[in-house]
């Protein structure tokens, strides 16, 4: 069994930080999924990939921009035309999808070691994220399950809303420590707890 190392290193400081007036405004967690897999459909094969996600992960995605589903231990969403990110707490999803999706339909890229997943939750989650990204994070414009691709100062980020006040962010592993530190700084004013 290989020991997993977090790219956050010493920047991950569990406990309460910042302006904790009446509790933490947000909670920051590194969710450490065992599998982060990117699926790309060739043109016209999008439906095949959506069907495969339903069969393999049990997640029924609607056919639309950014459509996604989030469950306790797995999630999937579209982040670009014909492209999907599938996440699971269990390891080995890349191999399962490689077996399920042939080169006739699309491509499978295992990003489990290439992305870091950060969960930002709490009453002030929308407020903190709005400081990073020029997006409308209100529940009406950004419903639960929806995924988006965006960037903060050239740090590419994929964001899925996984709850009414909960967002999962996927950033490049090599940028994760810097991005995490920025998230902590931005969360100081509302008080934050790291778990």
């Amino acid at each position, binding site marked *: 069994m290989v020991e997993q190392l977090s790219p956050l290193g010493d920047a991950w400081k569990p406990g309460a930080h910042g302006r904790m007036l009446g509790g933490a405004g947000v909670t920051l967690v590194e969710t450490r999924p065992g599998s982060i897999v990117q699926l790309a459909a060739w*043109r016209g094969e999008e439906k095949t990939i959506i069907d495969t996600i339903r069969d393999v992960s049990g997640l029924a995605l609607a056919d639309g921009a950014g459509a996604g589903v989030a469950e306790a231990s797995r999630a999937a969403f579209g982040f670009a*035309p014909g*492209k999907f990110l599938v996440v699971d707490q269990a390891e080995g999803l890349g191999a399962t999808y490689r077996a399920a999706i042939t080169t006739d339909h699309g491509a499978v890229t295992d990003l489990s070691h290439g992305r870091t997943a950060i969960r930002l939750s709490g009453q002030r989650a929308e407020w903190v994220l709005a400081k990073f990204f*020029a997006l409308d994070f209100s529940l009406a414009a950004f419903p639960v399950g929806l995924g*988006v*691709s965006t960037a903060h100062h*050239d740090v590419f980020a994929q964001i899925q809303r996984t709850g009414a006040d909960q967002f999962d962010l996927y950033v490049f592993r090599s940028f994760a420590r810097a991005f995490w530190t920025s998230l902590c700084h931005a969360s100081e004013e509302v008080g934050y707890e790291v778990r």
Partner: protein
Amino acid sequence: MIITCPYCGPRDLVEFSYQGDGNRTRPDPASTDQATWNDYVYDRINTAGDHREIWQHAGGCRVHLTVVRSTLTHEIRSVALTRDAGHRRSGGHRRAEAGDSTGPVSGSAEAQP
């Protein structure tokens, strides 16, 4: 400036990178016609008005977009996925395409060849 990506919706300019004039058609790579290549590499319509250009949503879904933008007001007239916008891969000559539905969007420049 805000560009409405057909996939991602309205996004700020910082997420996009400019990929050049969208009125050009790359000549046949086997061609050795110097005038054609000179035209492709150097000549621009330099429109004052609606201009077709290629942008990439580099800080988002990363697709290439064909955007018609007014060079006078920065108003975005239309945005479409470049793969759906009817661009030819190679061959042809843009000066010969005037009047073609996939030809240049150039405003006044088309009237003054």
